[in-house]
């Protein structure tokens, strides 16, 4: 089949012959991020598995809580920064992720992965970048930001457009300063401010209007609600950024992570193995079809 998306890297750490059997990981640190959102630092229990385990920003794990099931959760850091840990920022929304809110340090969770494609960080070296994300769309991009900070000279102008519903919902607020120090233009916006908010109010795509964009040399990475991504794509295309240079990360119901269970299809693609990061050019035909 023609997989026009960014090359898939599914190197599941072992257990290829054991359907859905997870590896164990121990919760070593829990960081509350925002209302209903928590970051978990996880340490794979089996040292052999840990040695083999490698991932790229944009990839995800299937996180298993016995008795509840699995949920697909993106890596929220990069491999180098994680120091042998797996870091997941989880929004407690569904059956499995709500159960995750009751996890304590020392508890065990199951992990399968890493699965899926990754942000094209190598391919876009030398280019300007606009990282546009909303809400829980920042965690899957944080690994990309860490990579850029460490390799700052390899990239041109880098802008982070990040939005949340309210100031309280902004994730990783203590890290923005470090990103700014690394010469990343951090632009934060909220849908609704509060009495202490002196920053911007408005949705993420709106803030494209005051960016100076070199269309032939700019890559857009976007992750967030589909409606936000639709308008980010619209704004990017309107500035003549090529569809091939707009990368989106899609979320769908997933059960396997290996292109087998069928749930995450969009057109000919299995989001779990052909994505979840896609160049928009491969999805143009399907992404805007309602309910497809």
């Amino acid at each position, binding site marked *: 089949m023609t997989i026009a998306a960014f090359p898939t890297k599914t190197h599941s750490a072992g257990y290829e012959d054991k359907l859905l059997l997870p590896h164990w990981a121990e919760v070593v640190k829990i960081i509350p991020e925002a209302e209903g959102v928590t970051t978990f630092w996880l340490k794979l229990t089996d040292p052999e598995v840990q040695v083999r385990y490698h991932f790229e920003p944009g990839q995800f794990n299937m996180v298993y809580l016995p008795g509840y099931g699995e949920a697909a959760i993106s890596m929220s850091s990069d491999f180098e920064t994680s120091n042998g840990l797996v870091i997941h920022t989880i929004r407690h929304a569904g059956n499995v992720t709500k159960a995750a809110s009751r996890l304590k340090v020392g508890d065990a969770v199951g992990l399968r992965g890493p699965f899926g494609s990754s942000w094209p960080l190598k391919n876009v070296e030398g280019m300007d970048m606009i990282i546009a994300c909303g809400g829980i769309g920042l965690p899957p991009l944080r690994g990309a930001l860490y990579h850029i900070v460490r390799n700052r000279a390899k990239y041109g102008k880098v802008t982070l457009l990040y939005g949340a519903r309210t100031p309280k919902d902004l994730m990783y607020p203590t890290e923005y300063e470090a990103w700014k120090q690394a010469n990343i233009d951090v632009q934060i916006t909220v849908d609704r401010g509060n009495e202490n908010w002196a920053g911007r109010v408005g949705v993420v795509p709106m803030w494209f209007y005051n960016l100076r964009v070199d269309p032939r040399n700019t890559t857009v990475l976007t992750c967030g609600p589909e409606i936000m991504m639709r308008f980010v794509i619209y704004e990017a295309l309107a500035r003549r950024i090529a569809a091939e240079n707009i990368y989106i990360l899609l979320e769908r119901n997933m059960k396997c992570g290996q292109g087998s*269970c069928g749930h995450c299809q969009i057109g000919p693609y299995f989001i779990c193995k052909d994505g979840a990061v896609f160049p928009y050019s491969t999805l143009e035909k399907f992404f805007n079809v309602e309910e497809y």
Partner: protein
Amino acid sequence: MKDNTPTIGSTVALPKTELDGLLADLRQEGFQTVGPRVKEESIVYAGIEGLQDLPRGIVSEQQPASYRLTQTGADRYFDFIPAAQSWKQFLFPPRHTLFIGEKEDTKTGKWKLRENNEPAPRYALVGVRACELAAIQIQDRVFLRSDFYDPIYRARREGVFILAVNCLFPDATCFCASMGSGPRVEAGFDLCLTELNDLFLVEVGSELGRSLLARRTFDLPTSFAQNTAKNALASAAGKMGRTLDTSDLPELLVDNLEADHWTEVSKRCLSCANCTLVCPTCFCWNATDQVDLLGKNTQRERVWDSCFSLPYSYVFGGNTRPTIRSRYRQWLTHKLSTWKEQFGTFGCVGCGRCITWCPAGIDLTEEVAAIRKEVKA
């Protein structure tokens, strides 16, 4: 006359009563023999011992939303068209326990997982039609990919024995000729029967098939028998009750995702998922935890799922496909369009089960024709 030298590719004439011995030998070799039998007014595939279990002189009359058995009185066993269920249930079991979890320590929430190490059953599938064999070969592409294989499917598939049968009397809901998957069985079998009034012609497809056949009493086929079979097979292709125009079909559907007809068909579709359950190629599955009331034991199971079920596309904040229109469109475009890009074939073999078992009698060949008409208009 006993001739013990059949070769792969050759055809012999086997008295019908010899099928009993063949099935007994298969069981001796460790196979569970499964084949057609009448159960609750349908022909289903289930455990069989020999000829006495087969639907002798019984055929099924299938129409959209209708399935009836009738007696012909003929001393024949395989004249019915595909049974209610497909063979999928034997290679891709509807419910399979993956592992069992026991909570070790209530303090840390650590669990001990015990894998399901039951050996895979070995099935001898008796009476696999060309369309059904094509369906198995399609599922091979789905479950035995180079970058992923399904261990449950692989273990069962590797051990399977396929006794195929050529379809001589396709009926109202059949369109395998359109899909290029029948009615003649071409390859991928151990033995293949063509049923005549007084005997089976048996084509040898594998070494195992050859060695099992060699233990039976058979004859060289007469040229009369061979001609009878040849003519019956030649005319079978013309007996299809339905046709599906597959020219430009993948593009037709995927280029017209907003056709009005999707809304029209959604008014009739009940989203009951029958079509996906009887379909021999549909492969979607779900994984669930069956947990006890104390929350200390869980059984992780893989079960069949369907793109027609609402939770199938659930993500936080809603469903990707909340309407019947979107779910029917997903099913049909997958079967007849995007499947081809994924796996190099259509996801349809023309067995007609989804037409027969749709309670609303929705006929995918007609729906495709209607979309074609709408688009060309």
